[in-house]
């Protein structure tokens, strides 16, 4: 304990040299017994071997990119097949309701183009409003047809105070959970839309997906994206239910072009 460090270090090295052959052989015996004995690493790699490994790496990366592309395409396949069974009627917005109270837009397609009351209306997700370049999997619900004339129709937006729609809330893909909660979407004015009638037992969080529910009385053949959860808190009047505010997936104030879904069975 009182000896200088140089003496103790020397003793330590001496003991380690004496014990090294025994410890090395016991380590090799253990690896051989567990089939984990590594191959002897070569100090240098030949140029041919290096080229071969580099080619394999490049090939693997290209394969990975290809598989990722296929995976992305398959991600929207289910919806795309469902939407292939319906007809799309492209329409432009030509005006709005003259009332301050209602959020209703006039479309340039009417009954002459098979637009009917109650049909759901979709638009391209995000700021991009060009439907020609948008994939079917990138469409989201913006409202439904409320009135129909021969040449024009009225589109009742999600933000109209009288708008009501059955919806489903499901967790965001990165939460890795599997549940779906049914609710009712309605507008409360000032471009705010809320989902009610969802039990607080459901673990709803900000960012979860809100889908318009397909049903017998709807022109939707599959559940389609409507928006995401902006915030959720227990309802003041009914604390066992959530009051969920929804962020629409489509930029509604700048809506210019939409598609009306027409189910051929109708």
């Amino acid at each position, binding site marked *: 304990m009182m000896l200088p460090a140089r003496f103790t270090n020397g003793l330590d090295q001496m003991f380690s040299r004496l014990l090294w052959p025994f410890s090395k052989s016991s380590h090799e015996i253990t690896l051989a017994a567990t089939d984990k004995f590594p191959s002897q690493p070569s100090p240098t790699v030949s140029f041919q071997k290096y080229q071969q490994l580099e080619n394999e790496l490049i090939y693997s990366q290209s394969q990975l990119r290809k598989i990722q592309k296929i995976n992305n395409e398959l991600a929207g396949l289910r919806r795309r097949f469902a939407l292939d069974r319906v007809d799309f009627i492209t329409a432009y*917005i*030509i*005006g*709005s*309701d*003259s*009332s*301050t*109270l*209602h*959020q*209703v*837009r*006039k479309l340039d397609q009417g009954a002459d183009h098979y637009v009917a009351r109650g049909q759901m209306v979709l638009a391209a997700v995000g700021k991009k409003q060009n439907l020609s370049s948008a994939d079917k999997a990138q469409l989201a619900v913006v409202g439904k047809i*409320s*009135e129909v004339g021969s040449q024009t129709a*009225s589109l*009742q937006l999600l*933000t109209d*105070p*009288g708008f009501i729609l059955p919806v489903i809330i499901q967790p965001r893909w990165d939460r890795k959970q599997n549940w779906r909660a049914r609710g009712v979407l*309605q*507008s*409360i*004015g*000032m*471009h*705010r839309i809320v989902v009610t009638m969802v039990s607080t037992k459901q673990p709803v969080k900000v960012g979860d997906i809100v889908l318009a529910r397909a049903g017998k009385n709807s022109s939707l053949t599959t559940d389609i994206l409507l928006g995401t959860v902006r915030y959720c808190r227990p309802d003041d009047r009914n604390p066992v239910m959530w009051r969920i505010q929804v962020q629409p997936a489509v930029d509604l*104030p700048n809506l210019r072009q939409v598609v009306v879904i027409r189910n051929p069975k109708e």
Partner: protein
Amino acid sequence: MRWLSFSILLFALIVVQVSMGYLFGIIKPDFLLLLAVLLAYRGSGPKMLIACWILGFAKDLTSEASLGCYAFAFGLIALLIVRVRELFYGDHPLALIILTALCSFIVEQMILALGFIKGDLAESSYATITWALLFAALFTGGLAPYGQWLVMKMHRRLGLPRWRNYSH
């Protein structure tokens, strides 16, 4: 009131209201109500009341509201303005702004109340909708001086008196 000029002005206002209204977003001005307030403020006689009713009826036809709601509300507002206009002396823009904003808010509140009675709207949405209507009313009121300038430029074509009329 000269009905041909009034009809042309009405048609132009409907086109502007319907085709450009949505560009303003949630808070959009009500050009038809603005004209109704100005006519009631400056005009006289039953023809002016009929013109206001027609403006309301035009709004009924171009909106989702039940037919006749706005026509009735505009008619009532015109009667109200005729009764209270003698309280405002002169042509001060502030008086016109306040009167227009107040009338716009009252009309929309009447339509909102009707929506609640009919069950078209959820009661929980009253507060937020009222805020939107209040801002829209202020926006409409803010445009009143410009509307008055336009109406005064056209007063001969519309058959309105050059100066304000204080009698009922």
